[in-house]
């Protein structure tokens, strides 16, 4: 019963016809494509991403894309296509772990803060707004640099950065709902706070949380790429898109465009996928608000 209350508004997003639906579908297609890529990487990658994939004499110079190496090789002879495939695992792991963590912390805090708008709310809001208004990538770099380079540490850094995003959205939504006649009625009927929050307010914020998840993940992918670019998610020779891009900067200037082109394209596409999901959903929500 409770699950269907959460899921129904979500399912209805896909059923109805509306202008932004193509964005939602395209976004889902892109994200699912990358998820499949990450899961199947060991089966479809033609080479080990951390092993020489060309004869030694060719390894001194990046090799251009060819049938054997659809995205070319980098300056130490690793196959870029295989590295992109494996890189998607790191990116998705970091971003999804971080987003889920931010959600798990931000949503309850937002609920509580919005429901009991008092001193706690004010203090939490100041803290969250301070972090929110600070450039996310700089904060993530600072945290990750102290923790040391690893995907899990990068995920922690990103999680800290994105908690306020969820918090602010859920708090605003909860505040609005708390002041509604509906919740007022539940209160006067003596429903316990826990029931009101979990059964009535939380399900109504679910669509908004989904929107934030989409847009937040899109942003997190770019921040992850930034961390990776700074060498803070993986260490050599492990693959990650941002890291590979950084390592390709010099080669790129010497005309080996593929050392940068494909990692950057992957970052953009995946970020675009999540952004389209968020945009499509938010358009649907705006439409519903207009109808009401």
């Amino acid at each position, binding site marked *: 019963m409770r699950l269907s209350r959460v899921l129904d508004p979500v399912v209805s997003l896909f059923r109805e016809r509306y202008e932004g639906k193509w964005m939602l579908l395209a976004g889902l297609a892109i994200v699912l494509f990358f998820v499949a890529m990450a899961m199947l990487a060991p089966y479809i990658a033609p080479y080990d991403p951390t092993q020489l994939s060309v004869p030694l004499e060719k390894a001194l110079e990046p090799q251009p894309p060819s049938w054997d190496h659809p995205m070319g090789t980098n300056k130490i002879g690793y196959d870029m296509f295989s590295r992109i495939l494996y890189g998607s695992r790191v990116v998705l792991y970091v971003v999804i772990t971080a987003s889920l963590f931010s959600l798990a912390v931000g949503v309850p805090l937002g609920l509580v803060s919005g429901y009991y708008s008092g001193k706690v709310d004010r203090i939490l809001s*100041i*803290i969250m*707004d*301070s*972090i929110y*208004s*600070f*450039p*996310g*990538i*700089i*904060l993530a*770099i*600072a*945290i990750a*640099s*102290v*923790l040391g380079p690893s995907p899990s540490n990068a995920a922690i850094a990103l999680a*800290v950065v994105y908690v306020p995003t969820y918090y602010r959205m859920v708090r605003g939504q909860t505040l609005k709902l708390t002041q509604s006649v509906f919740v007022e009625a539940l209160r006067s009927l003596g429903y316990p706070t826990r029931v009101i929050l979990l059964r009535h307010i939380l399900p109504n914020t679910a669509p908004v949380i989904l929107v934030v998840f989409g847009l937040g993940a*899109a942003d997190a992918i*770019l921040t992850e*790429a*930034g961390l990776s*670019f*700074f*060498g*803070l998610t993986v260490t050599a020779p492990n693959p990650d898109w*941002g890291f590979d*891009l*950084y390592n390709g*900067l010099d080669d*790129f*200037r010497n*005309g080996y*465009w593929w050392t*940068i*082109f494909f*990692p*950057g*394209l992957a*970052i*953009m596409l995946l*970020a*675009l996928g999540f*952004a*389209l999901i968020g*945009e499509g959903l938010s358009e649907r929500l705006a439409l519903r608000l207009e109808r009401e």
Partner: protein
Amino acid sequence: MAGLARYLLLRALLIIPTVLILYTLVFVIMRVIPGDPVQAALGTRYVPPEQLELLRERHGLNDPLYVQYFEYLAGVVRFDFGESLVIEGRKIADDIKDRFPATLELTIASFIVSVGIGMATGILAAVRRGSKLDTAMRVYSIVAYTLFIPWLGSILIMIFSLWLGLLPTHGRLDPRISLEHKTGLYVLDAILTQNWVALKDALAHLVLPALTLGIVLSGAYTRLVRANLSEALVSDFVRAYRARGVRERRILLHALRNSLIPVVTMMGLQMAILLGGAVLTETTFSWPGMGSYLLEKVEARDYTAVQGVVVFFSFMVGLISLIVDAIYALIDPRIRY
């Protein structure tokens, strides 16, 4: 206007909690991590234990945590962000003084580019609402935002520097050109000293980084201007202007002015994102600002420097939102404090 001054002073005081919160966050993270920052900064180099102890003493790392916390804070008030762990005796504040003007110049230029592109595309989309052009602009606003800065920067370098040979690939100024540094903003310095050769070169160096960062940030303005302007264009006061026989071009201007208010409120947040984006842009273009500095210090594990950068940026963010508030108050007469 006395009311405005008081309001701004109040807003200025609000910078303090922001700085405190970010400082505390970074401080806590740095101190709860097991391991010794001094040892970490030295890496694998062997240093005799007694010298290590001396270094710890020097950086106050042997004091109780609360003493460390407040002593640093007392320093920050005097614009002292501590000393480098790596380069002995080097003050972080001096580094910031050296590096920040480059970031400021890049940020200002990128801001102009992003607002320019964002307004142009947003106005086009709003005026032609529902057309193919509108759809194209909406797609642009999403795609621009998802571009990874170093990637876009590299592609622009490839096109404009490597293929067309029009613009330099990195740096702020050709080393053969001399320029007297007054403000640290090279374009401004060149104008002040009437050094036209340097001006041309500084601008040429600035174009690609500013374009890169500006494009990525412009998408947010595109959508905001589009949404607000298309709403303003069907509003009652626009119809009333029309009923008085005012020319359409002038009406568009008035509608635009009204739609800019939410855009201005967004600018503070956008500026923060801009500062973050500058970090990646600088690294891509070897632009010697705070971003490159941060990368150097992260690689050297110079944690006091990293901490200093965060605290400094939290000041900047607060200052920016203060400026945005002032602009907001100037363009909207309804604001009375």
